[in-house]
């Protein structure tokens, strides 16, 4: 499995539901197993990405809070 990012999405500043909706739309173009990095500032996106990953089967590989910017790494199912 690849460890390099297939795509980085800068969704800083956007509010619910855009971080999830834009991520879902963008990963349609990718291959299964591809990694995506998402940067967001909406605090609600933390539980939302967890719920979205659980619901869709895409894997939330890691998430971190870097000075108010939430970084998510997702592996496409």
């Amino acid at each position, binding site marked *: 499995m690849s460890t390099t990012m297939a795509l980085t999405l800068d969704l800083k*500043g956007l*509010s619910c*539901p855009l971080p999830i*909706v834009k991520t879902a*739309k963008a990963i349609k173009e990718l291959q299964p197993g591809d990694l995506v990095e998402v940067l967001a500032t909406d605090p609600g996106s933390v539980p939302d990405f967890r719920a*979205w990953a659980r619901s*869709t089967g895409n894997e939330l590989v890691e998430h971190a809070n870097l000075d108010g910017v939430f970084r998510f790494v997702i592996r496409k199912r």
Partner: protein
Amino acid sequence: MPEEKDRKLVIFAWSGDMDKVWPQLILATSGAAMGMETTVFFTFWGLFPLLKNDKAAGRARRITGDSWMQKMLSLMNRGGTEHLKLSKMNFAGAGPAMMKSLAKGHKVASPTELMQMAQEMGVHLVPCQMTMDLMGLSREDLIDGLDEPAGATTALLEAQDAITLFI
């Protein structure tokens, strides 16, 4: 993974107020993003956000319908996603203007953007045929890219094995 039952979302959009249209479209786009087969059934006042916006249609005001009552209704209820009213604190349009300004500042997508996004995400947008007939609206008065107008039975059948919301 959730069960099959949780993979479908049906929203009955019965209100055309800004404070209802927003959650209708936020939940619809989120459902589609979660991979749920999502349908929004637009009925009664809820149908009016599906009308073409006056500016996009290149006109000052929409006048539709055959009878004087339908024509008067079209003038009094503008329709489209650009002229939504708030159910509380509308203040003759000042409330929605302030709400739009707040939303823009917080980078919250507008109802117009969300409607377009719902279409891009493959959400089924179904106008209620009975409401169209009652209010004197034709398919051409509504935005492009909608599903075929349908009735209550179609909507209820779709809702049978779906999570159903009434907004």
